[in-house]
């Protein structure tokens, strides 16, 4: 019969404490480090939107049936939304810059 585990081995403690401390240190870093993507509104084709519509028209990825709608977004590389002719904030209606 194996002995019941009565205590955490002191040796095992150091890596665990280190991991917790390390994770907390990562938390203290700038929030922007969480992601190098940004939400870009008004550039998604039907069925290619990232997630819920800003006005609640739908709640799921890929559910949009509107083209370049200002309430739908896609994740793009941070800083590249303007190149895609999108906007970083939701807006009303379809994206006029993406017509045609």
């Amino acid at each position, binding site marked *: 019969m194996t002995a019941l585990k009565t205590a955490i081995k002191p040796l095992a403690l150091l890596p665990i404490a280190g991991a*917790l401390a390390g994770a907390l240190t990562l938390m203290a870093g700038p929030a922007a480090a969480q992601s190098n993507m940004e939400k870009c509104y008004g550039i998604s084709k039907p069925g290619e939107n990232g997630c819920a519509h800003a006005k609640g028209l739908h709640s799921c990825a890929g559910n949009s049936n509107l083209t370049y709608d200002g309430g739908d977004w896609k994740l793009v590389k941070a800083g590249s939304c303007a190149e895609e002719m999108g906007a970083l904030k939701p807006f009303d209606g379809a994206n006029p810059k993406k017509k045609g």
Partner: protein
Amino acid sequence: MPADAKLAGLQRDFAAFLLRGDPAVAGALRPDLPAGRLAVYRNTVMGSLVAVLGHAHPTLHRVLGEKRFAALACRFAAEAPPRLPMLWSYGAGFADWLAGLDPAAGLSPWAPDLARFDWAMHEALFAADAEPLDIARLAAIPPEQAGALRLVPHPSLRLVRTGWNIHALWRDAAAAPVPLPEAVLVGRSPADGDDGTAGGEVRCARLTAADGALAARLLAGATLGEAAEDEDAAGADLQSLLALLLQNRLLAGFALDRHPSFTRPGGIDP
């Protein structure tokens, strides 16, 4: 026959026809109508249930394709119709039902896990809200007590451990299913504020199989020390897992297991 019993019998037969479509039942229900007339009701009911299952399992729906998904969903709906008057709750047993199908029937072996993943995302969306844990209190834990820490997961937190490339299938419509031991962590992070996602956003992250084993122990209430000793978690990265949970605010609290050798007067209240 008393009128009540007659009505109950009629409703039972009609319900059976809606789910299974036996033409003999339809003929007995209304001999005066053409055979196809009652099928209109059956079509509406089954079509709705299949659509509900499809919306709750978008990845499985996409990878299987409309025809194969609808065929399976129809069979499931006939065998396990909704028991609650809330459509969002319908489909909880779909993954297990898929797993119980006869393997000889040709169902893709990855389908149950993909359904489990889809359902985890679905449940995460509807799970209760919870305040994220207080980072300052967590940071105040003395290092020698870290091993005795138990985490309280956010109500939306789900873990899917699988032998298939579930995460790639979800993210990339061009990916093909391949065997790959991994785990996917799913949770709803509280809303960031002005980004229009009221109530938060469901996100998922891919974990290695070892990190998945570690996460499974932690979510089941093991202490950090117990979870780290798990054989399946050998090689797991506790720091990255904790950072992932904390950054996405997917922990609702923590508790400290006090052991005599670590208890100090005036220690931290769990």
